[in-house]
C-alpha cells in the first residue's frame, strides 16, 4: 500500500475522528491517484468525429454524416464545464449498522464516498449539491462550485436531522421539486426498501432526465450473515425484533438478500442507471477507481 492509498483503508479512516478531517484525508489520497475527472456531462462544443465502434452510444451517431457518406461516425464534444452533480445520502437508522468485523458503519462509509465525490466535482470547477435524507429530505445544500462547498457539505452531513425510517419515493419527490436542471444524481444508500418503491422513485428521476448512479452500501455481515447460534435481531428502524436460529435461516437469508440485490441491479439496468454495490470493509482505493473508470468508459 503506497502513501496515498493508506487513506482509503477503512480501518485507517476509522481512526480519524471528525468527518471533515477524515474526508480531506481521503480525497487528498484520491486526487493523488486520479488525473482526469470521469464525471463528464454533455458539452455543446463539438470537438471532432470518430468512427463508430460497437458499444458507443447510438445517440451520439451523426446521422447527417451517415446520410451523406454512408459511414457511421459519432460526435465528440469538448468537456463540459457546467456539470451539475446531486449527491443524496441516506442517513436513516439502518445506515448506522456496523457489523462485527467492520471498522466503519454504513453511514460513515457513505459519508466518505459523498465527501470524496464532492471534492472531485468541486476541483473540476463544477457545481455540486448535497442532500441528506431518511423519510424525507432532511438537509439540503444547494449547488455550488465554490471551494467552501466542501466544508459546507461536511457541516450538513454532520448535523443533518435524521428519521429512523427511509422513504426514498417521498425524498425523490421533494428532490425533484427543488431541482429544475437535470444533472448527475448519485444516491448513496443501503437500499433496504421495497424494490417497487425504489423503482418508482428512480423512474421519476429518469423522467426528469437525470443521469442516475445508485451506490448501495452494505455491511459484509448483511451479505454473508456470519452468525451461528440463536440470535435476537433488533430492528434499527424501530421495527420489531426477530429471534431466529442463525444457522437455520442463514442460507435462506443469503438467498433472499442476493435476490433483493439482483432485483435492484436488474431494475437499474432497465432504467439505464449505474448500480454499484459496496461493502464497508472494502478499501475505497480499490472500490472508487473502478467505479470512476467505468463511468469514464460509459461516457466516452
Amino acid at each position, binding site marked *: 500500500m503506497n502513501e496515498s492509498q493508506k487513506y482509503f483503508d477503512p480501518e485507517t479512516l476509522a481512526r480519524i475522528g471528525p468527518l471533515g478531517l477524515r474526508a480531506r484525508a481521503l480525497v487528498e489520497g484520491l486526487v493523488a491517484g486520479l488525473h482526469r475527472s470521469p464525471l463528464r456531462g454533455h458539452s455543446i462544443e463539438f470537438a471532432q468525429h470518430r468512427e463508430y465502434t460497437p458499444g458507443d452510444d447510438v445517440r451520439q451517431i451523426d446521422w447527417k454524416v451517415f446520410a451523406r457518406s454512408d459511414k457511421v461516425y459519432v460526435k465528440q464534444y469538448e468537456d463540459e464545464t457546467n456539470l451539475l452533480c446531486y449527491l443524496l445520502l441516506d442517513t436513516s437508522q439502518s445506515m448506522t449498522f456496523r457489523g462485527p468485523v467492520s471498522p466503519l458503519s454504513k453511514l460513515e462509509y457513505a459519508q466518505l464516498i459523498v465527501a470524496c465525490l464532492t471534492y472531485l466535482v468541486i476541483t473540476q470547477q463544477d457545481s455540486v449539491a448535497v442532500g441528506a435524507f431518511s423519510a424525507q429530505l432532511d438537509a439540503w445544500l444547494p449547488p455550488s462550485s465554490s471551494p467552501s462547498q466542501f466544508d459546507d457539505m461536511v457541516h450538513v452531513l454532520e448535523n443533518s436531522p435524521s428519521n429512523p425510517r427511509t422513504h426514498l419515493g417521498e425524498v425523490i419527490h421533494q428532490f425533484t421539486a427543488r431541482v429544475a436542471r437535470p444533472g448527475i444524481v448519485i444516491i448513496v444508500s443501503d437500499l433496504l426498501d421495497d424494490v417497487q418503491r425504489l423503482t418508482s422513485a428512480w423512474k421519476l428521476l429518469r423522467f426528469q432526465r437525470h443521469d442516475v448512479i445508485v451506490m448501495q452500501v452494505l455491511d459484509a455481515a448483511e451479505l454473508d450473515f456470519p452468525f451461528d447460534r440463536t440470535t435476537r435481531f433488533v430492528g434499527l428502524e424501530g421495527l*420489531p425484533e426477530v429471534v431466529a436460529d442463525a444457522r437455520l435461516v442463514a442460507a435462506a437469508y443469503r438467498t433472499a438478500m442476493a435476490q433483493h440485490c439482483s432485483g435492484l441491479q436488474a431494475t437499474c439496468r432497465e432504467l439505464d442507471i449505474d448500480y454499484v454495490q459496496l461493502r464497508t470493509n472494502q478499501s475505497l482505493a480499490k472500490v472508487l477507481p473502478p467505479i470512476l473508470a467505468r463511468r469514464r468508459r460509459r461516457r466516452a
Partner: protein
Amino acid sequence: MITLGIIGAIGLASSGMLFWGACALIPLVLHLLKRHRPQVIDWAVIELLRKVVEHQTRRVRIEQLLLLIMRMLICTLLAVALARPFLSTSSNTMQVDLVAEPRLWIIVIDSSYSMGYRHESTTRFDTAKARAAEIVSASNLGDSFALVRLGKPSQSMISRVTFDRAAVSKQLDELQLQDTGADLASCLHSIDEIVQNARRVAMDPRRIHIVVLTDLGKDTWEPATVGSLFQRLSRLAANHQLSFESVATGTPANVAVTETSASRTRGEFQGRLRIDASISNFGSAIVNRMPVQFLVDGQTTHSEIIDLGIGQTRAVQADIPHANSAQTVVAVTIPNDRLDVDNRRDVIVSKQKQTRVLCVEGRAGGARLVSLALSPTGKASTEVEIQTISSIELSSQELSNWHAVLLSGVKEISKSEASRLRQFVMQGGGLLHLFGSETVSESWNRMSKSNTHDLLGFQLTEPSAEQDWRIDPLKYASPVVAPFADFLDAGLLTTPIFRYWRIQPHRGQELTIDLAIQNSGPLVVRRKLGRGWSASWLSAPETGQSSLDTSRPAWNAIATWPSFVPLMQQLMEAITSSETESCNVLVGQPISGTLGVVASDAKMRVVGPDGEEGPVDSLETADDGSVTWTHGRTSQRGVYKFLRDNAVATQAVANIDPIESSLESIGAGRLPKSDSTLTEGGIDHTAIDLSAEKQDRIAQMLLVALLAVLVAESCLAWSMGRRLA
C-alpha cells in the same frame, strides 16, 4: 408390573434399567438451554430477515421438534429394551413378579465320587449337569450366573458372574466328576465370595438364587444339619433364595472295597506279605458269591468268593508273594456295580529294608530293655539293626543314617540336638521318647514351648500318683495295639503301670493316642511332624524293681510282661511307617518323598493315573542339602509314578475316602431353605411364559424400532445439516 386381570401381566424384567430412560431428557435440556441464551444484535435488514424467518420457521420448527422427539425416542426405546419388557399370559402375576427381575444364579454341583452312581444309564452327576443346563436355558434375559463345584476342596468354576450362557454351558460340559468327597465348608466359602462380589455391584440379595444340585450324601450333609454349617446355610437361606435339588433317585445298591492294608509292609513273613481288605455291602440286598481278587502288579494272585449280608462288612486276607521290585502295587478288586470308583483299592508295599534304630540312653544300660524288645534274639537280624550310644554322643551322630531314634531315660537335650531331631522327624524319621522317673520335665517343657524345637506337642505336667493303673486299649483302633484285638490274653490289658507322666497337649495340637490309662490320661501318644512321627511313651518300660542306685520306686513292670515285645515292635513300626504312609494316600492328599542330597537342578516328574505326565508341584532343598519333593495334585484315584532321569524312582497310590460309599442321603427338609416359589423339585418355569426366547423377541422388536428411528433421525439431521452448510 401392570396386571391385566385374568389375562396376565405386562411389566419389565429389569425395571432398574428404566432409569436410563432419563437420558431422554438430555436432548430436551440441551434444546432448552440453547434456546435461553440468544445473542443480541442490532440489525438493519430486519424486514428481509423477518420474511425469511417467517418462511423458514414453520418448517424448521417442525423439523427441530421432530428431531427432538426422535432423539428422546431413541433414549427411551433403548432404556425400555434394556428393561426387558414382557407380556405374560400367566394368571399368577405374583410368580411373574418374583422371577421377572434379573437374578444371579449360583449353581452348585456336587462332584464328589458318590455322584458317579448310575441309575439306569445316567449318573447322578450327569443328571445334575443336565438340570443345571436346564436352569441356564430357562433363565431370563439379563440373568447372570456363577458355578461352584462341590468337591474336596470345592472350587468356583465361574467366580466372576457372567451373563454369557454359552460360557456357562461350556463350563458345565467340561465339569468332571472327582474321586474325592465333598468339603461343604470350602463350598460355602466360595458361595460367600461370589455373593459378596455380587453385593458390591448392588445386586439385590433377594435376587441371588443359590441352587445346590447334590445327592445330599449323609456324610457330607449331615454335619450341615447342626452347628456352624447349619447357621451359615440358614444365613444364605434368609438373605437369598437357597434351594436344594436332590439328584439321588431310587434305593442305592453299592458294594465297596473300603480298606486295604499290608500287615507288615517292612518285613516278610516267611517270604510272603499279608494283605488285609475290607468289603462292605451298603445296599439293601444280600450279595451272594461275589468274587474278590487280589492283584499284584496287575496279575491276579489270589481270588476269593464271599457273601455279604445287608450292611455287612467282611475282612478278606491274602498272603501274596513279595515281588523283587522295590515297590509292589497290590490291588483288591470286586466286580463293577453302579458306582465303579470304590470297587478297587490299591496299596503299595515297599520291599523289606532293615530298620536301623539308634538308641540313646541317659545312663549306661538304660536302653537295654527296649533294645531287647526290638531285637529279642540279641543278634544282628535282617530286620532290625540297633546301635546304642550315650546321650553325650547324640550331637555327633549323623541321624540320616537311621530310620528311628529312641531316647531312653535321656534327662534333657540341648537346643541344637532338638533342632536336629526335629529336622530328622520332619524328613520322615521316627522318634520315640521314653519318659520315666529320670526325666527332668522342666528341660523338656522349656524345649517344647519353642516352635522350632518342639518335638512332643505337649507339656509334661507331673507324674501321676502311684497306684495300680489299668490300660485302656481305646478299642484297639490304633495300629500299635490293633494286633492285640484278637489276642485278649496277650497281657496288654494287665500290663502293670504304677506311675506315668501326665501331659497337657498344646492348644490346637493334634495328638494320636495309641494307648491310655483307664479313666485318666494317655500312656502312648504320637504326633505327626512333617513326614515323620514323634512318639512318646509316658512310662518308660522298667522291670518293676526299685532302682538300686537311687532307691526310687519302679514306675511299671512293663518289661516283664508278655505284651512288652509286641508293643515295642508295633510302636517302632508305627513311627517308621512314614515311607509307606507317604506312598498310600487318599485322593486329594499330597504325596511327598525325599531325594537325599542331590544336585540343585534335580528334576522330578510324575505320571498320573490317566497317563498324563508333568512336573511335581514342588522341590525344596533343606539346610543339609537334601531335597524333598511334594506333589499335591492327587485328584484321581490310582497309581502315581514319579520319574527321575526318565526312570520310575518311586510310586504312590491314591485311594478314595470310602466315607461316601454308603450313598445314604438325608432329606432336604433337614436343611435350611428359602421361603420362595422355588419348589423342592426345582424351579417351576413352565408356570410362566417368560422364556428368554420370548423376551428376546420383544427386545428384538424394540431394537428394530430403535434402528428405524436412528436411521430416520440420521436422515433428518443430514438434511438439516446440508441446508445449514
